[in-house]
């Protein structure tokens, strides 16, 4: 084990060539008869070794689809993937199934939202962990079991040997998620994508899991992509944050920056809708009007316009003549808005689970 | 109860439970409404519906449609053992062993066959639902009692059940219907009980109960209407099996003793004797049975899918 991790550390130290580069990634779902839906629309970002980025947005904004596209896990039929995804410079879009399977689990791994449904109910934890090791590290049964026990121990599952023989339904929610993480880290991947890893868990467990992830990543120089709608998670974990809406990135910023000065009204809205302790009691929360369903196609204008308070006529293409572009917005920031917020609607940073410690 | 049967149950109950999720305000109807909206876009459903409707119309207007009297042994004198006059003017599909117009018999046959199917299914559904209500509404020992009984019925294979019953009731078409009906009872009982349980715990029901509304009223004003859609689905599917089972029973000689009365199953059975030189006499009624059964099945399946998002794909 130690060897694997030290290897991770070395790459982390060796220069900052990005582990993952996503350029103009677009995913389009087409169904027979119906007009296709653009789930991801020209998304670009990159992650460096040891770096943790967050993809933030309401459910349905395309963040999960983005991650699946990166992993090449989208169903073959009825999906068009465009743009480019490079892992250590290797192009993944359009890469063959074999190639992808070689990479998946070995160089890039993923942790999913619901640990129960993400584990095969009829196969023991042991098998589900060891199968990765056998697949990618060509271990035989005995080695694999040893290693698996080690992994479980590492992710903080007590009495790992016994657990190996158990079935998912016999484990607690937190344990399951730990098991999943163990599997994803089995080959100390260069890239780890965590899709809402804590949403299905109790608050206390959430904190532990986030902590675990943080340690593991920091320990190894693995690049981590956090996909979440929970700003608390972001605050606790991420270096950079990409806020997505209706399939596009609408704002990118370094974490503290974002919380300090959200520029996009949507980001602002998100922050404002988080309950806080430091506002006087009785102050109503200011949620965003409507829901993600109310978005309009980007072609017609800013998808958020219908829900936007500071929205104006030129948010619409027919008025402005062009669609809203993603532009630099100060150091390390990008923004897709014609009428950004002047200042932060609120001061300080949110206090929620996993808030920055 | 064992899981295999249990499995059958769960499927039914699941269907039922979904009806239970419907918003309380008489949602059952609205669900079926939306279901029909979906159905109109489903080609399978349309095919099924067309088949069913066509045959129902044929049955309804048989006297107008049939070119001749299905009992008239018009060409009997031309029949010889081993040779039956073929299709000819006025006899588009030819005649049977007794010189009767096959087309007319098929047309009139639809009446008998569909009637048997419908009556036995309705009978089975009504009795089954009654049991289901009993179990679902009152629960406790009533529930246990009814459900055990139903389980026992389920534990006797359908055809055996039908056979024993028609042996018991002697050979006549009513016995036939009852026999088939009984085999239908358990499904409907479970179905209704399932949805009743789902309903009983639904907030609406609890609320009304809290308001002191009588249980019976909840059942009849709220639960029953909501359980309707799954019952419709099951009913449609059961119709298919009922018609096939009826054919099987009359093949076993447990059908209507007045065999001159046209009925597909009986026609099919009696045609076996001339299969070697006039297979059409078997094939025509068989096709009718197959198509109608298929029609009801298609309709039922697409209904189910329409009513039940889980099934949709």
């Amino acid at each position, binding site marked *: 084990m130690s060897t694997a991790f030290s290897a991770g550390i070395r790459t982390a130290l060796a220069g900052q060539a990005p582990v993952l580069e996503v350029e103009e990634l677009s995913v389009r779902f087409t169904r027979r008869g119906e007009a296709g839906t653009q789930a991801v629309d020209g998304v670009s970002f990159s992650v460096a070794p040891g770096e943790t980025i967050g993809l933030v947005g309401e459910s349905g904004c395309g963040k999960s689809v983005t991650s699946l596209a990166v992993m090449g*896990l989208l169903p073959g039929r009825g999906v068009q993937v465009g743009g480019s995804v490079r892992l250590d410079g290797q192009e993944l879009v359009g890469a063959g199934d074999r190639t*992808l*399977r070689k*990479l*998946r*689990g070995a160089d890039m*791994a*993923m942790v999913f939202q*619901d640990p129960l*449904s*993400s584990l*095969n*109910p*009829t*196969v023991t934890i042991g098998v589900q962990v060891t*199968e990765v090791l056998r*697949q*990618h590290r060509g271990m035989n049964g005995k080695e694999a079991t040893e290693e698996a026990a080690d992994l479980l121990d590492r992710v903080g599952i007590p009495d790992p040997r016994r657990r190996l023989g158990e*079935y998912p*339904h*016999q484990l607690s929610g937190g344990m399951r998620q730990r098991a999943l993480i163990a*599997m*994803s880290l089995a080959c100390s991947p260069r890239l780890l994508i965590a899709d809402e890893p804590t949403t299905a868990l109790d608050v206390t467990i959430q904190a532990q899991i986030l902590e675990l992830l943080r340690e593991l990543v920091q320990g190894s120089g693995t690049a981590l992509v956090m996909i979440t709608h929970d700003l608390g998670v972001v605050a606790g974990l991420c270096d950079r944050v990409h806020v997505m809406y209706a399939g596009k990135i609408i704002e990118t910023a370094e974490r503290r920056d974002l919380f300090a000065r959200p520029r996009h009204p949507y980001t602002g809205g998100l922050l404002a809708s988080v309950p806080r302790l430091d506002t006087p009691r009785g102050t109503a929360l200011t949620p965003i009007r409507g829901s993600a369903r109310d978005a309009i196609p980007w072609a017609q204008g800013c998808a958020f316009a219908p829900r936007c308070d500071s929205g104006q006529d030129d948010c619409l293409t027919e008025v402005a003549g062009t669609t809203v572009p993603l532009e630099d917005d100060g150091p390390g920031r990008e923004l897709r808005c014609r009428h950004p917020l002047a200042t932060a609607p609120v001061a300080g940073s949110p206090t929620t689970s996993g808030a920055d410690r | 109860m*064992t*899981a*295999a049967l*249990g*499995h*059958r149950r769960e499927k039914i109950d699941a269907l039922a439970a979904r009806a239970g999720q419907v918003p309380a305000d008489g949602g059952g109807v609205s669900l079926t409404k939306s279901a029909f909206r979906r159905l109109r876009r489903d080609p399978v459903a349309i095919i099924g519906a067309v088949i069913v409707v066509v045959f129902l119309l044929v049955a309804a207007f048989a006297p107008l449609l049939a070119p001749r009297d299905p009992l008239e042994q018009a060409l009997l004198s031309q029949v010889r053992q081993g040779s039956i006059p073929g299709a000819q003017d006025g006899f588009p599909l030819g005649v049977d062993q007794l010189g009767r117009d096959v087309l007319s018999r098929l047309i009139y046959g639809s009446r008998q066959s569909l009637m048997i199917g419908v009556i036995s299914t309705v009978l089975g559904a009504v009795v089954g639902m009654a049991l289901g209500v009993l179990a679902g509404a009152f629960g406790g020992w009533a529930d246990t009692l009814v459900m*055990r*009984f139903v*389980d*026992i019925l389920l*534990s*006797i*294979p359908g*055809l*055996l059940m039908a*056979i*024993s019953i028609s*042996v*018991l009731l002697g050979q006549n078409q009513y016995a036939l219907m009852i026999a088939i009906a009984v085999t239908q009872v358990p499904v409907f009982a479970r179905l209704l009980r399932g949805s009743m349980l789902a309903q009983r715990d639904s907030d609406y029901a609890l609320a009304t109960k809290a308001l002191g509304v009588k249980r019976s009223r909840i059942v009849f004003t709220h639960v029953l209407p909501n359980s309707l859609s799954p019952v419709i689905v099951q009913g449609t599917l059961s119709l*298919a099996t009922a018609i096939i089972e009826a*054919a*099987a029973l009359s*093949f*076993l000689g*447990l059908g209507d003793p007045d065999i001159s009365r046209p009925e597909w199953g009986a026609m*099919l059975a009696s045609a*076996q004797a001339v*299969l*070697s030189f006039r297979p059409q006499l*078997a094939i025509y009624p*068989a096709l009718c049975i*197959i198509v109608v*059964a*298929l029609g009801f*099945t298609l309709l039922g*399946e697409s209904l189910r899918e329409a009513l039940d998002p889980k*099934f949709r794909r």
Partner: protein
Amino acid sequence: MLRFIVRRLLQLIPILLGLSVLLFAWLRALPGGPAQAALGERATPEDIARYNDAFGLDQPIIVQYLKFLGRALRLDFGTSSRTGRAVTTEFLERFPGTVELTVFAMIVAIGIGIPVGYLAARRHGSWIDSTSVIGSLLGVAIPVFFLAYMLRLVFAVDLGWLPGSGRQDVRMDATHVTNFYVLDGLLTREWDAAWDALVHLVLPGIALGTIPLAIIVRITRASVLDVVNEDYVRTANAKGLANATVRRRHIIRNALLPVSTTIGLQTGLLLSGAVLTETVFAFGGVGSALREAISNRDYSILQGFILILAVMYVLVNLLVDISYGLLDPRVRVR
């Protein structure tokens, strides 16, 4: 696991009791009551008296029932009014045939049904899918006996490729040890006999297999469609496992759970007498025996067979249930 089985066994008891009550009631409700049923309509009052006395039909109903139950437990269902032989003997003689037929039919149904169902699901929406769906619907809509007659007409009579009736060519005097003819052939090394018996299973087997086949295709398809969309399959793929591994360990293994139940259920149904098919193919099994019993109004046979078969059906379901427990760890602990 043991506790699980025991509990299931206990749950059987009320069902079996209920069954016996039902059949007891059935027998009493027969035209002319049990004596008449057993002795036939020409039975003289003396006969009836003798019978009633022998079977204690003059005693209170509950006593009668208990006696009936006692006899049933001793597998004593009286004698056939046609052959005058013990019902149990008749049954044991007929049952092996039905078992062989059922096994063959289920092999056909499973062997074709699961692959087709799987393929249909994986190629969801393709022509394979739609044809298999239509096919499975048709399979259920065709009256079995019609299918059987057509199969015989074409393959046995017109083409003469396969035997169209019986369990074995009567000209071949094969030695019969177990009455499972194929097995006998193998045991006695009479390969030709075994082969002949096997060939005799083909047509009835196919006819009998269609309905299970249709159902298995549908269930397999549905459950594979369910499973491939499960998160754990995505996980497996995310782990970069080989296609084969994913298919074997994560898709098929789980998809087959509901299918196994269906298979058990269908097997139970087929075992309970393929009355129609066996009749058409003059196949010496339980089903044709029932058919004969119907036309001879041989009530003792009917009652005895139906009781045995129903019990067997319940037991088969129990087995299915246990195997389900073995396959799905979640059931076990519950």
